């Protein structure tokens, strides 16, 4: 296990380094100056700005500085949000994205797993077909359709604020639910598939023949194995969920990380973009790592395979 963890850690460093390098050079290849504006900025002012922010230095020097900043976990000032460092911008936005993502995940699990179990248990019945069609609709409806629909419904019903982050203790519900419906549909189908496979195993038949109650067979014996496909999917899904989503943030007006990601690209705000990429990269690596460990625990065969 220790070898597994160390090798994973070294791989992670290499992946992050490559991703940041590629991102840096891509932003330098992109045309457009971060400081240019609608009303033309005189050339001598643009040159001064480039000098102030170190953009006039050779590209390799800039690259070295950025990498050093990354190594010291200090991304420097943001071009686009003057007066704030990239670290500050990210630390303001990340808790919002984390809360939305986490609530989305909880909604998704709460919706998806029971539906998946029920479908598997009642397989090929009306219940199964209707639940699975519901899940298919959930997968097909993107968040930018569900989100505004829920938001408009709230304007009519007045139960919850339709959007915003002025009252976070209620504002997380709608975006969480939107993400939950979308991911929950996936979870439902994955749970169903996993459960169907497990329920046909010999040890389940043994348990049943011993007279164990059906509820205990399903929840006690089959569920652990049935969740393996879900856990494999949860890893990357969690990163996507808490890494912030530009669409969700735009629909519900949330001050999360996704907006910075997009704005950093359009503003050519290289330090902020690298900060976002690094944050997102670390998130993906951590969640994938955790889901690997969880998989190993759920399914010992998996551990020996990745240990080898």
């Amino acid at each position, binding site marked *: 296990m220790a070898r597994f963890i160390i090798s994973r850690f070294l791989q992670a460093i290499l992946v992050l380094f490559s991703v940041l390098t590629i991102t840096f050079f891509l932003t330098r290849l992109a045309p457009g100056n971060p400081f240019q504006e609608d009303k033309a900025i005189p050339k001598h002012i643009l040159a001064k700005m480039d000098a102030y922010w170190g953009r006039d230095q050779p590209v390799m020097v800039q690259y070295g500085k950025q990498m050093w900043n990354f190594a010291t976990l200090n991304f420097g000032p943001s071009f686009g949000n003057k007066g704030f460092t990239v670290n500050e911008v990210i630390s303001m936005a990340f808790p919002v994205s984390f809360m939305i993502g986490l609530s989305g995940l909880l909604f998704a699990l709460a919706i998806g797993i029971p539906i998946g179990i029920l479908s598997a248990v009642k397989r090929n019945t009306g219940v199964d077909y209707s639940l699975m069609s519901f899940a298919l609709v959930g997968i097909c409806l993107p968040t930018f359709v569900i989100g505004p629909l829920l938001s408009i419904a*709230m304007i009519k019903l007045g139960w919850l604020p*339709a959007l*915003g982050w002025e009252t976070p203790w209620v504002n997380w519900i709608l975006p969480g639910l939107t993400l939950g419906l979308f991911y929950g549909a996936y979870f439902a189908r994955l749970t169903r598939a996993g459960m169907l496979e497990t329920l046909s195993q010999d040890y389940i038949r043994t348990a049943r023949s011993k007279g164990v109650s059906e509820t205990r067979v399903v929840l006690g014996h089959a569920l652990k194995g049935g969740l393996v496909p879900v856990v494999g999917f949860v890893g990357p899904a969690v990163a996507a969920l808490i890494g912030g989503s530009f669409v969700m943030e735009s629909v519900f*007006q949330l*001050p999360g990380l996704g907006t910075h990601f997009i704005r950093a690209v359009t503003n050519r705000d290289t330090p902020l973009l690298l900060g976002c990429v690094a944050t997102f990269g670390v998130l993906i690596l951590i969640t994938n790592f955790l889901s690997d460990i969880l998989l190993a625990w759920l399914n010992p065969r998996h551990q020996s395979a990745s240990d080898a």
Partner: protein
Amino acid sequence: MMPRIKAGLLLVITLALVSCGRESRVDWATRNKILMVGNGSEPKALDPHLVSSVGDSNILRALFEGLVTYHPTDDSKNAPGVAERWESNDDYTVWTFYFRDDAKWSNGDPVTPEDFLYAYERILSPDMASPYASMLYFLKNAKAFNEEKLSDFSQVGVKALDNRTLQCTLRQPTAFFPQVVKHGTWYPVHPPTIEKFGQNDAGLKPMTMQFTLWQRPGNHVSNGAFQLKSWQINKSVVVEPNPYYWDADIVKLKEIRFFPLPNEFTEERAYRDGQVHYTYTMPPNMIDWYRKNDPKHLRLDPYAGVYYYKCNLNVPPLDNVKVRQALAYAIDRKKIVENVTLGGQAPTYAFVPPIEGLYASPQLVKYDPDKARQLLAEAGYPGGKGFPRIDLLFNTQDTHRAIAETIQDMWKKELGITGIGLLNQEWKVYLSTLHDMRYEMARHAWIGDYVDPTTFLDMLRTGDSNNETGWSSPEYDQLLSDAALAPTAEARQKILQEAETIVMTELPFIPIYWYTRTTLVHPHIQNWEPLLLDNHPYKHVDLLAD
């Protein structure tokens, strides 16, 4: 099972009760005199010398006050700000501003002419690289100082005569100078604050440090009716009344909250959900709905801005004036504003938007397809034959595309020109293509900085950084210089009309429409009159429930 059902029922009842009794955000805000404003994008900075966008200046207008300030009902008028009165010499080249005794910063310090000198030196310093420093080029030698051709700031035309008097010496006669100093670039900054937070290890001048903590709540010192209370990125900027403001008694609002709502659909939903009193803009396709169903919320006000196509005169056949005229005469602008832009914009047959009582532009660029065809034939392209391919550049946005497609179609139908390509680019790429003049034709827009026709006409002067067409006319430049010396307002108007006639005959810019400000304004908002520049002075604004 029973307790669970009971709990469920209880939850539903509570939710229903909460929702029935829930006062909307704006009702709550009105009761507490908190103005909730949708304000476009997240501000780039809260430093008057680092910003240039409309949204940013909306916030800075609450925080700062210039020598002269905006009038609440008519922005061609001036209201006293830090200066209680001002006067000029006979030829409008030397302006003297007399400060009021009680003008104070939000920390209680008096606002002095020295603070303004400091601010003007800061914005004009080459090292500050201020994006909008050119607004101060009205001052004698300001341009040379900003371009590093002059290093001694004392030679720039501004000085403190004593601790209550500031004198500006201009590069040319400017009768409307008080209009100009209302602009955000002319706001003062608090020198001790800038110096304190500008300290750095690199040995750079604190004055011109761009990245400092002075803009933070708690550090920020301003001299306007409001002071900074909080700033959370992508969430809100909150300002509260400045207790030391000289006119604090008149301020009725207890707070203004500016929300960055860059997506117009989201913003409209926020308005309908009762979360903001005022929107920055609105989706064009919803204007009609509001007109029919909710007209008391909809506001369509004239706005001093013009939408036009720029021609690059270095690219044939656009170097031929007849070609430009043919293209301009073949555009049916009425069709565009009625079917595409939808926001009550005015089709324009001139460049400068009308300024009531001050300037009426000569309406020259009529829709005349016959004349257009004739001109194109005279230019050597009868029926569009042999017309080379040119691309029409615009930044990626639905409305720009729809307008470009409509015009492309009009040129095809009326003139037989088939070689017009549409080229959309992402914003920053579009800007560099435009500003480096690597385009053929490009969409552009201009919003006035002050209420005077020269805020539009000056950009076509030879060598102006916003000209970007390769067009140059010594006669035009001369007329603009003559206009500055005109003895009366009528004489000046006449000369400027002559100048605009040259532009609208030569057509380096092909005008399409004059802007309208399309917004949703909550009926609770009081004293929010239509203003040509849309610069509302917040100190007069009040909130009253119906």
